[in-house]
């Protein structure tokens, strides 16, 4: 072992390079497999926990991805009155979702926060539910990354930076921070439906507090902030029942209710009721097909790398033939020589495997930021 250690130490540059090559060859398929498995488990777990999603007719993948994972994607909205229509049936619960805007890059999810958190079995790590229009509850990762806590302010992103006639960004006081769940909820900002409509410009307040570099000039206003003082003067124009939501999570009380609701809405032209698990299976089927293609590709790359490494090892062994002959002549057993050189190769391979393991761990740790 001493001679092996000294050999590797003397040739540490070459050994490191070989270990790196081995590590990278192993890392790629390992990280792809781990990521796919992780996302498969995460996506499926959430999809299976959500019985039905109701939305406008359109791309079913977009509807499910937006309703479950708050992925941005333009889907047709539906009127909020649909929630009342569903609840009036008496055989289900309905949780509206409006996912159209963002704050500091994180999706702003308009919903009935208490109902949503009860459904997802989540709670508050600090603070509590909003008590005032315009307040927000943030996911654990949002809080960690942005360094925000209860009482801080979070500004919604400008919906259209080229159209200043649109509603101004809303500064939302943070009422609560959620417990981490390892799901999309960690990376979302939850507000009431009314707050999303304010961000959309459907509601406004007279004499609302406005702030900006030059608050005296209307053109210089950069954001709005709803406070206990001006909240009473805030109101919406038009028929609120027609205000938009992006989808509804439907929780049927029985299998029969689920079948009836699915049939009722899927038979029409305007809406669709989807089982997220089925849609995600379909999506993961596509992903896994691509992964199989990648696996075949990576297998070829791995084989090529193995051949290259084999060649390097063979050349190295040939170059060291004189060393082996010397060792043998002075009395070193051939088996010991084989063991020494095998240990050197083994150490390089083990180093590569260790590197791949560390890399895979890093990939998993970075996974939420990568995908």
């Amino acid at each position, binding site marked *: 072992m001493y001679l092996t250690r*000294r050999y590797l130490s003397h040739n540490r540059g070459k050994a490191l390079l070989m270990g790196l090559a081995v590590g990278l060859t192993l890392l790629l398929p390992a990280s792809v497999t781990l990521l796919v498995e992780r996302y498969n488990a995460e996506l499926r777990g959430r999809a299976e926990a959500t019985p039905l999603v109701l939305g406008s007719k359109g791309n079913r993948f977009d509807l499910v991805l937006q309703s479950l994972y708050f992925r941005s994607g333009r889907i047709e909205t539906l009127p909020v009155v649909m929630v009342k229509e569903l609840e009036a049936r008496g055989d289900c619960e309905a949780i509206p979702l409006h996912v159209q805007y963002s704050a500091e890059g994180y999706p702003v999810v308009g919903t009935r926060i208490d109902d949503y958190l009860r459904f997802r079995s989540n709670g508050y790590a600090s603070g509590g539910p909003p008590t005032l229009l315009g307040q927000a509850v943030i996911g654990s990762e949002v809080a960690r990354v942005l360094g925000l806590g209860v009482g801080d302010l979070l500004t919604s992103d400008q919906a259209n930076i080229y159209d200043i006639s649109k509603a101004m960004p809303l500064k939302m006081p943070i009422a609560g921070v959620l417990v981490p769940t390892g799901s999309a909820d960690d990376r979302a900002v939850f507000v009431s439906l009314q707050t999303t409509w304010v961000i959309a410009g459907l509601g406004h307040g007279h004499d609302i507090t406005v702030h900006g570099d030059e608050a005296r000039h209307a053109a210089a206003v950069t954001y709005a902030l709803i406070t206990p003082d001006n909240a009473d003067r805030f109101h919406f124009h038009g028929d609120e029942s027609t205000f938009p939501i992006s989808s509804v999570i439907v929780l049927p009380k029985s299998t029969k209710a689920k079948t009836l609701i699915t049939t009722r809405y899927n038979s029409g032209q305007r809406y669709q009721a989807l089982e997220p698990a089925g849609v995600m299976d379909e999506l993961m089927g596509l992903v896994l097909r691509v992964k199989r293609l990648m696996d075949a590709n990576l297998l070829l790359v791995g084989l090529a790398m193995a051949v290259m490494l084999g060649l390097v090892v063979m050349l190295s062994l040939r170059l060291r033939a004189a060393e082996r002959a010397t060792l*043998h*002549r*002075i*009395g*070193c057993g051939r088996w010991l020589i084989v063991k020494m050189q095998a240990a050197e190769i083994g150490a390089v391979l083990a180093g590569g495997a260790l590197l791949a393991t560390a890399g895979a761990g890093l990939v998993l740790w970075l996974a939420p930021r990568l995908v």
Partner: protein
Amino acid sequence: MEIELDKVAYQYPDNGFCLRVPSLVVPGGSRVAVVGPSGTGKTTLLNLMAGVLVPDEGSVHLGDHTVSSLHDTARRRLRLQHIGFVFQTVDLLDYLDVRDNILLPYRINRGLNLNAEAMARAAELARAVGLADKLDRRIDRLSQGERQRVGVCRALVHRPAVVLADEPTSALDPGTADTVLDEMFSLVESQGNTLVMLTHDRSALDRFERVIYIDDGVASIAEHDQGSRTLLSGGGG
């Protein structure tokens, strides 16, 4: 330790070359040179004495051991314990420093105990050949002569009874070669080793008591008498 070869024949399977040694005795503690043209089997003779090669016919004895009848592992152990090799090309391990190269027999033989005494002996040998201040130096920073000295120290560090040297100075300039031989002979004499050395250098023969001549694949031994040749025994191929 005495070396005896009796009616030995060894033939290389690939080129058919055959070395024959009718009868050869190297008394313990003597210094014997092996001379002869290139390709006549000098290195083969050395390998037969060390048990690296096993004769097709006849027997090789090293002290009380019949080397030619031993199993490979036993021959290897015998080499490790009783024989020190000095090679023509200095095959030192470039990833070890001077000290570790000298101590190499201890690193590859569990039967040898690498203790403080062995370390002190390595240092003592290095001092004897002028390498005391270079024990921690990398091999690639040594001159050719210094490397050969390290090779000599490595051959002697575990106190072998027999030292086999395969043209140890052929790659050195004459001045350095003389110095290395002086140091090697001084060490061998002080330890009472049996020395068998291959050489092309006729001027070095005065250092030896006997000379083995190899010609046309046949070895014969003679007393060395200041240039004259007194054949002790020999044979034809």
